[in-house]
């Protein structure tokens, strides 16, 4: 909790720090880390209901394309919200069809959804197809730090939603759904509705992150925006950081994405191997993620 506050504070003042010649690179890397951490926080929300989604890369991509396509007409903030809404609506439809499925089957359905979405965007005209889509910068380039602060704002929003949900009534329904669906129903929890509500909130945040990402990279391609790599990233980070927590995905995201940026400079695509190694080591030695290192602290389970 305190850690999360400190991290967000650092994010706010980072552009003002004397970073010298590394400033532009640092800000760019940090912005990317914030977006992916936000995506990981969003993914973790659904995980709290016991569902493993491989569609969050697709929600990110849908948000990115929707925001990119609508930004010239709507302006930056409404376009981002539209991106979130698009992702959210698609998650609602996907959820209605698949959230009655358990564990593995749901994961497979979300994987199929991702592939379908990528193919649709690839084959459509208005998305630029395989050629890709140029995107205008946030606020049409009026503020040099606009994109950076949008990423900070997104991370703050995701953190707050994550914290608020873990203190809400819904927290109990989500945890009960994850730990025993039949029992939860007999105790009065509408498990399908709980999953559906969580799914739409989670997808909205993922779509929002995608929109900010589009305005940062300035160019979208289906391979990048809908890559399975991002869906994997969205789940590796919370597992590494600590599932069902707020600080876990936040801290994990910043560490993993920083590491990824650094490794990309050194070994290019080889960073994926390091990813795999981190995942295996975490599951073996820190099954509850980084958060288990703080587990003795009171309340860390909900931090």
């Amino acid at each position: 909790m305190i850690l999360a506050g400190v991290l967000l504070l650092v994010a706010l003042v980072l552009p003002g720090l004397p970073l010298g010649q590394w400033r532009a690179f640092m800000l760019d890397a940090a912005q990317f880390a914030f977006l992916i951490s936000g995506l990981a926080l969003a993914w973790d929300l659904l995980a709290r209901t016991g569902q493993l989604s491989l569609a969050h890369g697709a929600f990110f991509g849908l948000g990115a394309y929707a925001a990119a396509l609508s930004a010239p007409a709507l302006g930056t903030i409404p376009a981002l919200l539209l991106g979130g809404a698009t992702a959210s609506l698609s998650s609602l439809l996907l959820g209605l069809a698949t959230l009655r499925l358990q564990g593995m089957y749901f994961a497979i359905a979300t994987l199929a959804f991702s592939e379908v979405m990528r193919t649709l965007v690839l084959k459509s005209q208005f998305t630029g197809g395989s050629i890709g889509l140029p995107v205008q910068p946030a606020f049409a380039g009026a503020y040099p730090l606009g994109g950076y602060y949008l990423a900070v704002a997104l991370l703050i929003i995701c953190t707050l939603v994550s914290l608020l949900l873990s203190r809400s009534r819904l927290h109990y329904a989500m945890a009960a759904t994850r730990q025993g669906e039949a029992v939860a129903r007999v105790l009065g929890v509408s498990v399908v509705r709980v999953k559906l509500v969580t799914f739409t909130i989670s997808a909205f945040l993922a779509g929002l992150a995608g929109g900010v990402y589009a305005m940062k990279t300035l160019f979208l391609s289906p391979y990048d925006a809908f890559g399975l790599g991002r869906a994997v990233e969205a789940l590796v980070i919370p597992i590494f950081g600590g599932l069902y927590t707020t600080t876990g995905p936040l801290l994990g995201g910043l560490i993993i994405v920083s590491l990824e940026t650094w490794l990309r400079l050194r070994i290019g695509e080889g960073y994926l191997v390091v990813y795999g190694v981190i995942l295996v080591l975490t599951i073996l030695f820190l099954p509850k993620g980084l958060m288990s290192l703080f587990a003795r602290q009171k309340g860390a389970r909900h931090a």
Partner: protein
Amino acid sequence: MLKVTGLTKRFGGVVAASKVNLEVHEGEILAVIGPNGAGKSTLLNLLSGLVRPDAGRIEFLGQDITHAAPEFRTWKGLGRAFQIVQPFPEMTVRENLMVGALYGKPGTSMPTAQKVVQQVIELTGLAAKADTEAGELTLLEDKRLELARALCTQPRLLLLDEVMAGLRPAEAMEAVELVKQIRASGVTVLFIEHLMPVVRALADRVVVMDYGEVIAAGGYVEVAANARVREAYLGRSA
């Protein structure tokens, strides 16, 4: 209060419930007994909505709930404790109870739920363990939690599925007192039980099942003397 007519459920070729007729009256404690495989647990699953019947009708408080979702039945006041205790292992006892208290009646606020939980914790003697993770409880504590969680949904009719199985006699008698207290607070109880001393101590009426059928119903003494019941338990004499 609860009226079951012609309730039937087949699993493949096995008839787990065959035209079961049953009535539970407000305020009573009704025991359902029968040999293993008689269909008692299936009956409870049908009543709480975890299993869908092939035929028949379930009426609760004058409303047809035959095809209602489990959570809807809970909202109406039909509570259920499981035979195999299934606490939410990563939650504390208090958090487990909060789930029932918050969602057992739609729209319950957090402060109200916390009050309900506190009352149930005191009633069921779980105060010392309230902030222990449910995964670390002993069997007796698990059973108490199971019962307490069902109570937190504030049921008008409570279904108990062998909640005393595996308890030592002294512990079982403690649980009997608890169930009596629950009834005294205005809750009707339907329970499944193997331990005959428990049945005798608790039940106002007994329903006996065998091969998915109700073969006898009445007071304990009357049912215990019934020839078909003796046959079902002891086997047919040559």
